[in-house]
């Protein structure tokens, strides 16, 4: 059974891989060389137990939102079978127990990430990148900061690899664009430096009030139509051409860190430190935002797919959200059942 489903998953991935292939030759975004001699290009993913090797696209391709495909999955399999296809360790991690997937906020998370119609898309993406980075940064610090004795909670012994469960580990590109494995602590250091470098770059994330724009309103007759040809997200507001693809990479990096925090640190330390609800709410908001803005592809979500399924099934994700669309309700309902909540 599980083979059948990994086959379907592979097909789903195949659709995205096409775009990725196209961009394989294009150079990763220019990045500062770090002290360690690594070119800080955080853009490759290695899936240790899967043959498909994804390279994250640096362009902004339309994401596959094929409802028929996801319907195929949900029509032909039980929740249990789908869960089995995820090849999760057993017993399942605590964070998949719906009793521990709770939040510090009630209500519709989408109100926080819905773009006002007047606001230009690039401006909104920039806003969201910065907000989510500030949020995640606080969680990183908890596991990353060293105590007096020089030890951090996430260290080379607890996390020799930047991983998200047994099926996923992430690599960094060195100066020769070769993917290398790093301890999670070191990975997060490079990643923090890389993201801060981007966010602090005034050319990428301008804060000058003089260059702002707005989103044209098609229902107002006079509005000048977009000049065809060379268009990109954020162009009207002075964002550079590669802005959207860099933001995609930032969102992907943030996702990887969240995935690592869930898989490696949910109990130790977040549960012990009473932060698991905070983590859940920030991650939930992050997933809803990133998928709504097409900043994360469904294929990238894989290590966290069961939690996404769970949140779709228990009503945390509103039915009109992209995250809900990417979720598998049967798997989520099965998880609810197992937790005694369905």
């Amino acid at each position, binding site marked *: 059974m599980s083979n059948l489903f990994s086959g379907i998953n592979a097909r789903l991935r195949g659709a995205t891989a096409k775009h990725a292939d196209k961009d394989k030759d294009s150079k990763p975004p220019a990045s500062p060389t770090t002290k360690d001699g690594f070119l800080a290009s955080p853009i490759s993913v290695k899936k240790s137990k899967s043959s498909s090797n994804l390279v994250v696209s640096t362009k902004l391709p339309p994401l596959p939102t094929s409802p028929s495909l996801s319907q195929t999955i949900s029509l032909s399999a039980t929740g*249990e079978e789908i*869960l089995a296809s995820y090849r999760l360790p*057993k*017993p*399942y*991690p*605590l964070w998949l*127990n719906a009793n*521990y997937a709770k939040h*510090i*906020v009630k209500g519709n998370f989408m*109100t*926080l990430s819905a773009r*006002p119609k*007047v*606001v230009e898309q690039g*401006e*909104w993406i*920039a*806003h969201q990148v*910065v*907000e989510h980075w*500030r*949020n995640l940064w*606080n*969680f990183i*610090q*908890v596991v990353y*900061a060293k*105590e*007096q*004795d020089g*030890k951090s*909670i996430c260290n080379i012994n607890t996390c020799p690899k930047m991983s998200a469960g047994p099926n996923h580990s992430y690599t960094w590109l060195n100066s020769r664009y070769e993917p290398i494995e790093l301890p999670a602590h070191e990975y997060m250091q490079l990643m923090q430096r890389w993201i801060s470098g981007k966010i602090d770059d005034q050319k990428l*994330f*301008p*804060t*000058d*009030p003089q260059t*702002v*724009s*707005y*989103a044209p*309103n098609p229902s*107002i007759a*006079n*509005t000048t139509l977009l000049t065809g040809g060379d268009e990109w997200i954020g162009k009207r*507001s002075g964002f550079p051409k590669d802005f959207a693809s860099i933001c995609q990479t930032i969102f992907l990096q943030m996702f990887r860190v969240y995935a690592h925090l869930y898989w490696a640190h949910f*109990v130790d*330390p977040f*549960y*012990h*430190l*009473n*932060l698991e609800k*905070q983590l859940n*709410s*920030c991650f939930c908001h992050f997933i809803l935002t990133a998928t709504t803005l097409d900043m994360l592809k469904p294929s990238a979500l894989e290590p966290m797919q069961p939690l996404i399924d769970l949140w779709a099934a228990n009503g945390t994700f509103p039915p009109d959200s992209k995250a809900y669309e990417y979720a598998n309700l049967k798997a989520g309902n*099965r998880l609810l059942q*197992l937790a005694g909540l369905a």
Partner: protein
Amino acid sequence: MIMDNFEFAPAPPQRCPEAYGPRANNNQKRCFQLAQAFFKDGVRRARERNERQLDLERRLEDPAVGPRREQLWKLGGMSEAKYLRFLRTKEELSNYIPIKTIGKGYFGEVKLVRKKQDGKVYALKRLAKTEMVSHEQLPRVRAERDALAESDSEWVVKLYTTFQDSTSLYLLMEYLPGGDLMALLIKYQIFSEDITRFYAAEMIMAIEAIHNLGFIHRDIKPDNILIDREGHVKLADFGLSKGFSKSHDHSYYRELLQKPAPPNNKPANRNSVNLDEIALTVSNRAQINEWRRSRRLMAYSAVGTPDYIAPELFTGQGYSFEIDWWSLGAIIYECLVGWPPFASDNSYDTYRKIVNWRQTFFFPDDVYLHPNAAHLIRSLICDASSRLGSRGGAAEIKAHPFFAGVDFNSLRRIEAPFRPHLESDEDTSCFPVDELPQGEGFSNGPTNTNGTNGHQATASNFQEEEVTPEMCLPFIGYTFKRFEKTFM
């Protein structure tokens, strides 16, 4: 079906935060609070954003808007975008060019500054973090930030943003070039009844505005009543204000009362209540002049002047909104008489007089007050339970015969009695700039009352790791940014 296969890993039997080091626990607190603050602010901003979008769409539907629709939409979008950029902008002191120091309290210092980005002038108030922590004034700074941030009233000084660095908290406000009511009282010593009526009426409106928000100001006094460029009143300095829902806190005052009387160069006065009670009569104008000279200095000192504070705040029996109406009474008295009702040459004696107001309150024989004015003052300087305003709020006071004929709702449109004459946007002629230390930057820490400390802020002893300033634990959630259509 074999349920056993699908069990979840068990949660640890109990949470053990103590198993982690101090850094982790410190980061835990920060993370916990910031996540809370993020969603609280996020929800508020989203709600306001929605309202603005709906409002914009409503305005577009108005047929009278016609060809201006596109312009409206464009401006709406651009102001939202400017706000988003403002939210992304790192606020820091170096974004502002200091012009002059215009005000000073014990914890705070207020400077006229020019913002480099937009070239406009603002008033920037700085509060030293070390002082706030060591004096346990954190609830006070929170109160000020919350009251100002939540108000959107023309009667309250507008707060644009708050930010912090490792040593200080900053409040960026609109600059009110007319100075404060204390400066006017120092200049004119006494107001006519008409002029008094004008300021009293405006103060009622201002106090009512903050009461409607659920805040008690608790520190209404002439140096906290600011004058805008048209000569109208705005309320400032919410450092003591309290949201009504929060627990009442009189420990601050109790502590003050428990302090021994300050050393006095006139020791005879100290133990002699009776002497003080008759001190402020006509026969003793010299003492009044002494009091006048020192009143600014009093405002700079740690405790400030207690002259306008209601007795129930000292005694700890609990208090409510009507304490602000007592203060109003004391200010009206001062406007008409020339000094506040319980003036003494030291705060200790003032406290005692206020607590014993039944014995110590009187009108001087040689000052003529219209019976209506005297009656109004007596209805405010009195027991909390019978005080005007304690039942019917501001409306009760507005209905007093002293205000007969005043149209409260059009006050801000009438011409104010004193309009500042301003030469430029950085005119500080209404402020006691010569009395204040005029260092280039902000002075470091509280100054003593003779104000000799004016050098550049130096690195403080406030130790926080390599952490961005807004993450400093006790001050999380302090940072605030107002949406302002005309801001930039």
